[in-house]
């Protein structure tokens, strides 16, 4: 408890130091929708994409090249999206002001990080890898084990997990309320509540709003899909055909246009050396059939998000495709009984074909709508996501030792 008080005090001191400089900045939320969004008459932002030209079976947003997208979240105001952007990059959201959302979901690293398993406050290791946030607007399940069904529900997880941002609802609210710049920004984003106190739901809502603006649908693959076949090289098209062939079967779960079918699949990927098996969605659904089942991740911007799999076992995409080629269940530890997905087979692809698959995955990169990192944050703190995690922690520890 005393330790906690100390940290709080340290945070408050940091804040005071910061506020002095922040006061000189006039924070003003954007009144324009982000690129690719159209402002409606009601002043909310509606996503528009080339995939609006197409339909899909049952409106499910799954199919082939010219298929509409799944239902998605939009309709936030420009101000709510922009407030979410400030919060997203602000380490003040964490208990000791060392970690922001962007620490593990770094825009320079595909809105993920480069660690096998992410690290939270105090250099604590989290159980799983940080998933990308690109195109989360289209998802209906969140976390590797699919235990949340909305972005707002998802946000609560890392904010208050003791080994991630480590905050508590009360402390988070208390912290934000002491920062006049945030009070002003929340007033701009939620004008209907007439300058009342900041609400937790507004924090979740605006973070959700920002995340729905992270759209990646203009890769070279997309140009091919819309009919411009020269957008992909011959080896990449070969890769596409292997990807969707019924020998490799990648597209059966990583289904276009989002390159995920949003289902839970048990694929039998190995844990890193020495780590016990992660039962994943078995707990979410209370179902032994789904032991070691994880949500099928999108492959958009996949080349940017190494290492791979739920616990970061594979360092590069070549290792990942080799895993799928290694034979059904080859990496399942002895004595562990998994009900492997029916598409996990033994495709017996050649080395040449594996290389082409990796080529194709590289065509799914599009970061043209990457948002701008705020140059200054309402808390007065500096953004931390571009610093290596270890360094921040060292600094903190040093200052902690000194006091």
């Amino acid at each position, binding site marked *: 408890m005393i330790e906690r008080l100390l940290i709080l005090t340290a945070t408050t001191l940091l804040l005071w130091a910061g506020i002095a400089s922040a006061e000189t900045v006039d924070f003003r939320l954007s009144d324009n929708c982000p690129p690719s969004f159209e402002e409606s008459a009601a002043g909310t932002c509606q996503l*528009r994409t080339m995939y609006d030209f197409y*339909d899909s079976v049952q409106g499910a947003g799954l199919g082939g090249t*010219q298929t509409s997208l799944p239902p998605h979240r939009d309709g936030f105001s420009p101000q709510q999206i922009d407030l979410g952007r400030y919060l997203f990059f602000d380490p003040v959201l964490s208990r000791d002001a060392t970690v922001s959302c962007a620490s593990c979901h770094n825009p320079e690293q595909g809105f993920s990080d480069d660690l096998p398993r992410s690290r939270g406050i105090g250099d604590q290791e989290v159980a799983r890898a940080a998933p990308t946030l690109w195109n989360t607007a289209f998802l209906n399940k969140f976390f590797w084990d699919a235990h949340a069904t909305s972005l707002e529900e998802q946000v609560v997880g890392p904010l208050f997990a003791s080994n991630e941002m480590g905050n508590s609802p009360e402390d988070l609210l208390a912290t934000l309320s002491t920062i006049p710049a945030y009070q002003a920004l929340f007033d701009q984003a939620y004008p209907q509540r007439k300058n009342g106190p900041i609400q937790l739901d507004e924090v979740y809502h605006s973070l959700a709003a920002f995340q729905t603006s992270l759209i990646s649908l203009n890769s070279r693959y997309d140009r091919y899909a819309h009919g411009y*076949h020269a957008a992909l090289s011959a080896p990449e098209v070969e890769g596409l055909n292997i990807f969707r062939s*019924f*020998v490799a079967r990648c597209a059966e779960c990583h289904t276009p246009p989002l390159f995920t079918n949003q289902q839970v699949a048990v694929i039998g990927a190995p844990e890193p050396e020495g780590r016990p098996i992660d039962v994943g969605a078995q707990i979410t659904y209370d179902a032994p059939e789904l032991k070691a089942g994880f949500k099928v991740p999108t492959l958009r911007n996949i080349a940017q998000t190494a290492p791979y799999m739920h616990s970061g076992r594979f360092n590069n995409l070549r290792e990942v495709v080799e895993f799928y080629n290694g034979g059904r269940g080859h990496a399942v530890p002895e004595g562990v009984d998994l009900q492997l*997905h*029916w598409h996990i087979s033994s495709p017996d692809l050649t080395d040449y074909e594996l290389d082409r698959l990796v080529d194709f995955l590289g065509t799914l990169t599009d970061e043209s709508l990457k948002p701008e990192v705020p140059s200054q944050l309402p808390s007065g703190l500096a953004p931390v996501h571009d610093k290596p995690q270890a360094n921040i922690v060292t600094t903190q520890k040093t200052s902690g030792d000194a006091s």
Partner: protein
Amino acid sequence: MNIGKILAVILILAAFAVGMVIGKGGQEEVAPAIVKSAGSGATYGAGFTAENNAFTLSGNSKSVAGPPMTDVVVVVQDGESIQQAVQDAEPGTTIQVMPGTYKETVYIDKDGIRLIGVILGGKRPVLDGEGELNDAILYSGNNIVVENFKITRYKGNGIMSQAGNNWEIRNNYIVDTGVYGIFPQLGQNGVVEHNVVSGIEDAAIYVGMSDNVHVAYNDVYDSVAGIEIENSRHAIVEANRVYNNTGGILAFITPGLPIKTTFDVIIRNNFVLSNNHDNFGAPGSTVAGIPAGTGILVMAADDVVIEGNIIKDNKNAGILVTDHSHAANVTIDPESDPNSDRVKILNNTMINNGYDPVTEIRAFMLTELKTGNPDIVSVGPTSDSCIVNRQQYITAGLADYGNCDFTNTASIGNYLLPPVPAREIKAEDRGKIAYLGICAGCHTYTGRMIGPPVQIIQALYMDNPQGIADYIVNPVKKRDDYPEMPPQDYLDEQTRLAVGEYMLGVKK
């Protein structure tokens, strides 16, 4: 009401009146055979009306792709590449392939391609994967026709799709090739007819996650599953010959797929014969759990009508209806309803089925004190299912089945639609969507992004949207401090002009 129907009703009423019926559906009926004739009873409507039906092409063939979009015909000769012809083709091209051997994978990512094999003196164009190539034909376009090929020795599928509406797969001979013979997936409005498919390690014909499908006059044999309708709706499977597979015709929900339902499936007038082949399905596949000798299998599918089939010599059971929990090899899916509801078993000709059922079925029969060889077995909960003339068969698990109040599906010709049109987008919306979907990634109204601000472009082009339309097809480097713009020639002419117009009108 015709006289036959009145008679049938009177006879049934008489049976009830003399108290010979026990149980909800009366499966213990010992009355003299009361056979409702298919021609005389009420007709099943299923909510589909005749005017929705596609026109009939000629004879019994169905057309959903519509007439060719253009008159362009390209001929591929033996020794040339079919794929090259597809690549060079504009949408709407008919590609005629002469007899010969073609060792390639053909993929079609454009609309309106008709791939037509030319059969001369009994010789077809042969696609030969030599045990090396993955799939023979793979398409994602709309209005695709694939006809008259022989396809053999591929490792994956013979003909497969990923999305694409209005497809016709007709008169192909697919033998000894991979996982699925014909596999249309995630599309609407398709015909699979007059194909001969055999030697497939999963399903010979597999319709996956699709709507409005017609599978007719096919000959499928020596495969694990003959014809599968999976996670699909509004499908008719009729007049096929399905024999010597492990399972004949299947309508089911595979749990864990993103489209969660199967309903409104009519399986009628098929020959379902001796489907007793050893199961050689891949470990873990859904079909690997099918007991050999199953004529027709319904698993978790709703509103399946089984009518007028000749079901003969299937050793496990003629018709097996089950839910997910009694099926081997399936995972769970909280978003799928696991039960087969509203199954409707009308008149079928059933001879010599169930003579060697699996242990589970034998045990299940014992729980009902049934002996003999089961024609029809229903395991697991089902609601509002019904049967006609149950007294004809040896059954188990049908206590909850009522008597159907119709005897035929004569009013339903097919569930096909006129060619499903592409989504209608007005020209101004076309410009807006292309602007927001593509241009906005690099251009903002005032600020500098990857490309110059829209304001500057507006000043340059003023009243000249055509100038923008022309520039974006073939951009040239104009500014040293900006990267060269990639060509946007994948946008059609109309869209390019629309985007130019929209860009000039942008105000913030």
